[in-house]
């Protein structure tokens, strides 16, 4: 046997030598063999720790000696270790192949198995192979190696073993070997014998004692492992300088566990190689602050790279972070997971009830599984029938359907799951009777089994594994809790704040403490102290102690032992996650950390945790609440805005746009609307209103105040004298009228709104009218002009484009376009360079656009009525102020018109033309058009009074009259005069001063009218005119004088126009007019305006002309005329109905409205006039 062994051995040797020639691949495994042998040489030291000694690499020289020795010595000592080593290797190879679970399992455990298992394996193996003796003897030897050689064994290894012919190694020790053996061998032998003896003894013992001994033996061993350091307190285990160091190695976040497993695998792979892993251990701490790192324990960091190189997801070549000795224990610190208590709140992590709050009903003894009470989400099979009636069938057979359904339960449920509702057996019975079974006792009858789930008292009772529950930072909301609360017998809810507290205890939000809070420490070392918080850093709160012996000191306290301290009567605000967030109230009761608060707003008692409270800042005395101050405009909901009218400590009263008062919390405010000071609206009369203007309610209480907000159609107005709502009231824009514009802003001159309307307003008339817009191409365009003032004074250019007030001029001098006010332009003849009177342009135009109007009696008449408006109502009723009579007078004006017309249709024509010139085109036109419109009309009225068609115009521009007068009434002159007059009006318009003056002048006759339309030059005349007209003589006489140019005017009146006009009309201006008007009104007005127009004699016809022209000729389109005419007819037919028509038109924008309006009035006016005449 020995010989054969020897032979085998030599064979081995030769093999090894071969391998030396061809070292790499196979050498490793052989080396391993040698290594093991070397171990054996080193002594039969326990191979259990063989990994350490075997670390030695490159054993070649040793191999030699070993072989020699082996050659001499019998195989005994080599036998087992070698076997086992081989087996171990094979085992690992197997493990590498990953062929079976068990192998892997063993690998995990470092290839070490219990002896028992070894025995088992052996037996199994013998049963299979039928190999008789070897194992037995091995068993014997095993006894010898028991403690030391706990090397893995595997069945497969046996074959290899056989192949190698290692059987012989189990032979008895040869005496020679003994001699060659090192000292330890002797001991081994002795121990061997000792063991044998012990076995015999054991065999002789009775079974019980044997069992006990066995237990003791293993127990001791286990105890040795289990209790080794138990006695040693951890502080004695703290690492020292001699301990291995720990390095942190970066790895891919989330892959820490995989890395550790990979290291484990590599460790096992290399365990028996030349280069086993030299690291001692490696660990990870998963998610959290230590994510992205694994920690490797090693003696030197070179080992780490060696060990980790090539492992996925770990980066040993990046910087290794050496963990200081002091911090090493922290790496392994374990904090106890808060144990779930019955009644605690949890949330479900996955499944149908994801995110739902539940109450722990029961905790299993190992703390790993809990029974949770949830509010069910059931639809009782409703969707089965509706959506997929086949599902029930398919679910059984069709895996696809099944999977679908599982999906439906698994992933997308959260979006589609049924709402939380208590279990209703009635509902369940409807469709799912078959799934329903009552499990409750006869007494309660409230427990049901439905679809394999248990429902008690309507709640779902379900078991969850703890890892499927969120147990920390659950933050139960009170409404959720309420849902989960079992109703008490009497139907009242029994809210268990105790258990709520349980869940809330540890999830103090970081922001729950703010500096300045009164706190007390109720737990921990500093228990009992109280003070004010100074700062909060993470979970540590710094407190300045205010009471006790520590007073004045600053103490750091962990947040968990802290609670806020309040006193009864404190005014507090609810913060944090409570349902009552932002409520403010006074503390009524304090019990532990539960505080009952009487809310300020609803006067309810609410109970909250003290951590959710803070002192309500009395510092809100600055009248602000967060971002919101009194009089701020806030968005309450997408459709509603409101104005803050009262700011309480934590809430505010808001006056919304509908005029109702609401109490709001700052948190309910959607948005604050910044003050828009440039917001513009139009009031009831169409004049613009802005922030800061003083307005008065048109109806209701006629409250007035200053606009503080304009929002869409609403104005919020502040009235200091009004006590309620902080003086704020809300009104619609259309229900206020301007009293005064802020800063004396001239609402007239630059207003885009209709002056005429204003004037009427003053009279209490309504019917605002939009200004007629000039239509068509501005004739200025293409003209050569010079600028007569401003920075561009003197510049020559061509008008390229215009707006109402400005013109863009392309300069001749350089290629540049400038924008200049129109009224700063002088039109030049492009060839001669002579100044051209724009009135000349006006001429054609007048004939083009205004003439028609003019000629069409309707417009004309319409104009008159315009002024008649007041009169129309009370056509002849002198009762309506001076105006109506004035209208009567204006009827005369019409009469007057005839005069002018009599003086020449041209004259009448011009007048209009003139107006448009200055009126529609220039600024005068812009603002003035409308204004002038009324103004002119009135002017006419006045003029009518004055007795000259011009005069009116003149009258509007007080000075002009002179000129006009001087120019005389010769048509040609008239033109000129008008040209100049055209400007004048403009001036007149811009500078209101004259009018007043004028008004003053005329005021002699009529002081009343000057008042109502103070700012409006044109308005003034009207009344004046009106007044004047009342008494025929006066008008004539006075109108002229009134303009201040009293001297000239009269003269003028008498000179130019009057003569003619008067010639025609004679002293009885009115009468003819009346006649004319009558004619016009009755027939001509309606049917043939043209007729009326041309015939100067027809006062109505002519009169209109001036008016029409005055009124903004441009505005009147032919079509508009037709329309007007119809309306007029209608108006006639309906009598009073006219006014309605008019109004409806009034609401329209633009000239049409004006136009139509006017005719109506015209009709009325005519009527009225006729009446008057009659």
């Amino acid at each position, binding site marked *: 046997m020995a010989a054969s062994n020897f032979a085998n051995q030599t064979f081995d040797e030769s093999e090894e030598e071969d391998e030396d020639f061809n070292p790499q691949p196979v050498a490793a495994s052989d080396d391993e063999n040698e290594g093991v042998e070397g171990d054996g040489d080193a002594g039969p030291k326990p191979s259990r720790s063989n990994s350490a000694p075997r670390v030695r690499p490159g054993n070649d020289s040793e191999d030699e000696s070993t072989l020699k020795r082996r050659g001499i010595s019998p195989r005994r000592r080599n036998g087992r270790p070698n076997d086992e080593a081989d087996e171990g290797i094979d085992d690992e190879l197997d493990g590498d192949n990953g062929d079976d679970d068990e192998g*892997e399992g063993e690998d995990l455990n470092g290839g*070490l*198995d219990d002896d028992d298992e070894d025995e088992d394996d052996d037996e199994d193996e013998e049963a299979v192979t039928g190999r008789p003796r070897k194992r037995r003897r091995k068993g014997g030897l095993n006894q010898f190696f028991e403690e030391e050689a706990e090397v893995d064994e595997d069945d497969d290894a046996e074959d290899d073993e056989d192949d190698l012919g290692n059987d012989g190694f189990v032979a008895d020790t040869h005496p020679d070997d003994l001699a060659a053996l090192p000292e330890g061998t002797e001991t081994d032998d002795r121990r061997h014998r000792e063991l044998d003896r012990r076995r015999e003894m054991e065999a002789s013992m009775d079974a019980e004692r044997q069992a006990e001994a066995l237990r003791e033996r293993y127990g001791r061993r286990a105890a040795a492992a289990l209790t080794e350091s138990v006695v040693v307190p951890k502080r004695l285990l703290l690492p020292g300088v001699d301990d291995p160091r720990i390095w942190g190695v970066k790895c891919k976040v989330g892959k820490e566990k*995989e890395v550790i*497993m990979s290291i484990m*695998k590599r460790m096992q792979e290399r365990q028996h190689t030349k280069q086993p892993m030299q690291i001692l*251990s490696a660990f990870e701490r*998963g998610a959290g602050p230590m994510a992205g790192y694994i920690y490797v324990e090693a003696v030197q960091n070179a080992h780490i790279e060696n060990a980790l190189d090539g492992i996925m997801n770990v980066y040993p070549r990046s910087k290794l972070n050496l963990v200081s000795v002091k911090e*090493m224990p922290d790496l392994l610190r374990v904090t106890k*997971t808060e144990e779930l208590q019955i009644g605690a709140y949890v949330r479900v992590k996955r499944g149908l009830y994801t995110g739902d709050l539940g109450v722990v009903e029961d905790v299993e003894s190992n703390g790993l599984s809990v029974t949770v009470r949830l509010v069910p989400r059931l639809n009782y099979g409703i969707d089965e029938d509706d959506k997929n009636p086949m599902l029930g069938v398919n679910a059984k057979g069709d895996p696809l359907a099944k999977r679908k359904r599982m999906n439906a339960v698994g992933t997308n449920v959260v979006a589609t799951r049924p709402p939380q509702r208590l279990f209703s057996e009635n509902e369940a019975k409807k469709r799912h009777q078959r799934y329903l079974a009552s499990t409750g006792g006869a007494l309660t009858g409230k427990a049901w089994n439905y679809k394999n789930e248990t429902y008690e008292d309507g709640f779902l009772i379900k078991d969850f594994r703890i890892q499927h529950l969120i147990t920390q930072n659950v933050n139960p909301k009170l409404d959720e809790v309420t849902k989960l609360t079992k109703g008490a017998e009497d139907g009242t809810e029994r809210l268990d704040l105790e258990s709520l507290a349980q869940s809330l205890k540890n999830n103090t939000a970081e922001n729950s403490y703010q500096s300045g809070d009164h706190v007390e420490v109720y737990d921990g070392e500093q228990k009992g102290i109280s003070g004010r918080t100074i700062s909060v850093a993470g979970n540590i709160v710094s407190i300045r102690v205010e009471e006790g012996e520590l007073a004045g000191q600053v103490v750091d306290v962990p947040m968990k032992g802290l609670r806020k301290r309040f006193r009864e009567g404190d005014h507090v605000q609810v913060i944090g996650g409570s349902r009552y967030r932002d409520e403010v109230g006074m503390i009524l009761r304090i019990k532990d950390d539960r505080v009952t608060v009487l809310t300020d707003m609803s006067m309810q008692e609410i109970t909250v945790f003290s951590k959710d409270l803070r002192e309500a800042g009395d510092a809100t005395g600055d009248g602000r609440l967060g971002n919101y101050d009194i009089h701020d405009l806030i968005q309450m909901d997408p459709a509603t805005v409101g104005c803050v009218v009262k700011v309480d400590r934590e809430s505010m009263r808001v006056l919304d746009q509908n005029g109702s008062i609401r109490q709001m919390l700052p948190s309910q405010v959607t948005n604050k609307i910044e003050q828009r000071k440039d917001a513009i609206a139009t009031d009831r009369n169409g004049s613009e209103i802005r922030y800061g203007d003083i307005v008065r309610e048109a109806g209701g209480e006629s409250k007035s105040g200053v606009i503080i907000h304009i929002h869409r159609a609403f104005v919020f107005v502040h009235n200091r004298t009004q006590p309620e709502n902080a003086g704020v009231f809300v009104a619609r824009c259309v229900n206020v009228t301007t009293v005064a514009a802020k800063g004396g802003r001239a609402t007239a001159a630059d207003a885009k709104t209709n002056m005429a309307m204003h004037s009427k307003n003053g009279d209490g008339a309504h019917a605002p009218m939009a200004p007629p817009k000039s239509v068509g191409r501005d004739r200025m365009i293409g003209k050569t002009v010079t600028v007569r003032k401003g920075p561009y004074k003197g510049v020559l250019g061509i008008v390229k484009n215009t707006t109402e007030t400005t013109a863009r001029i392309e300069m001749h001098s350089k290629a540049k376009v400038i924008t200049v006010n129109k009224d700063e332009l002088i039109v030049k003849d492009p060839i001669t360079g002579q100044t051209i009177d724009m009135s000349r342009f006006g001429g054609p135009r007048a004939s083009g656009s205004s003439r028609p109007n003019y000629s069409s009696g309707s417009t004309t008449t319409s104009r008159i009525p315009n002024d008649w408006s007041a009169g129309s109502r009370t056509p002849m009723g002198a009762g309506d102020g001076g105006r109506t009579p004035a209208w009567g007078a204006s009827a005369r004006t019409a009469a007057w018109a005839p005069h002018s017309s009599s003086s020449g249709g041209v004259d009448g024509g011009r007048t209009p033309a003139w107006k448009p010139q200055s009126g529609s085109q220039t600024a005068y036109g812009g603002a003035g058009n409308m204004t002038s419109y009324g103004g002119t009309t009135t002017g006419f009225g006045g003029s009518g009074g004055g007795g000259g068609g011009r005069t009116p115009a003149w009258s509007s521009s007080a000075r002009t009259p002179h000129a006009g007068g001087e120019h005389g009434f010769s048509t040609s002159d008239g033109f000129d005069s008008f040209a100049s007059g055209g400007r004048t009006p403009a001036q007149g318009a811009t500078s209101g001063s004259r009018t007043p003056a004028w008004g003053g002048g005329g005021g002699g006759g009529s002081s009343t009218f000057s008042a109502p339309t103070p700012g409006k030059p044109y308005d003034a005349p009207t009344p004046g005119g009106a007044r004047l007209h009342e008494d025929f003589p006066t008008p004539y006489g006075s109108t002229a004088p009134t303009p201040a140019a009293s001297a000239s005017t009269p003269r003028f009146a008498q000179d130019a126009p009057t003569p003619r006009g008067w010639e025609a009309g004679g002293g009885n201006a009115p009468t003819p007019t009346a006649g004319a008007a009558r004619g016009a009104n009755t027939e001509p007005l309606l049917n043939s305006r043209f007729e009326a127009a041309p015939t100067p004699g027809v006062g109505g016809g002519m009169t209109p002309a001036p008016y029409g022209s005055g009124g903004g000729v441009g505005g009147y389109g032919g079509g508009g005329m037709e329309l007007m005419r119809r309306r007029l007819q209608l108006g006639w037919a309906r009598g009073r109905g006219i006014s309605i028509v008019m109004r409806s038109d009034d609401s329209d924008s633009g000239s049409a409205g004006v136009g139509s309006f006017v005719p109506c009035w015209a009709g009325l006016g005519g009527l009225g006039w006729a009446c008057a005449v009659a």
Partner: protein
Amino acid sequence: MAGVSMRDLRACMVCSIVQRFSDFRARGCPNCEPILGLANHPEAIQDCTSRVFEGLITMAQPTQSWVAKWQRLEGYVPGVYAVKVVGELPRDIVSALEGEGVKYIPRDGRDVDEDR
């Protein structure tokens, strides 16, 4: 072990070794088997091992590692251990351990403060 799924891993509540359930069933706990006798006793495995654990340690050389000392893994087999094992051993097992002279150290972190 490596490369296999990380699911179904359990940690022994006594020694904190991490294995799959099938391994426990096949061989029991390599360290505690004499006491716990987990092999082929699925119920015992359920009782004495936990699926809830945190932190993995590859223990290569339990004898020399400070980590092993600190985690009280000295004398155990090399392998993968958990830093923290959540769960509670059944009372009778604990008393059995006591009977064996083994002081059971809960590995769920509850005694951390006390020991320091």
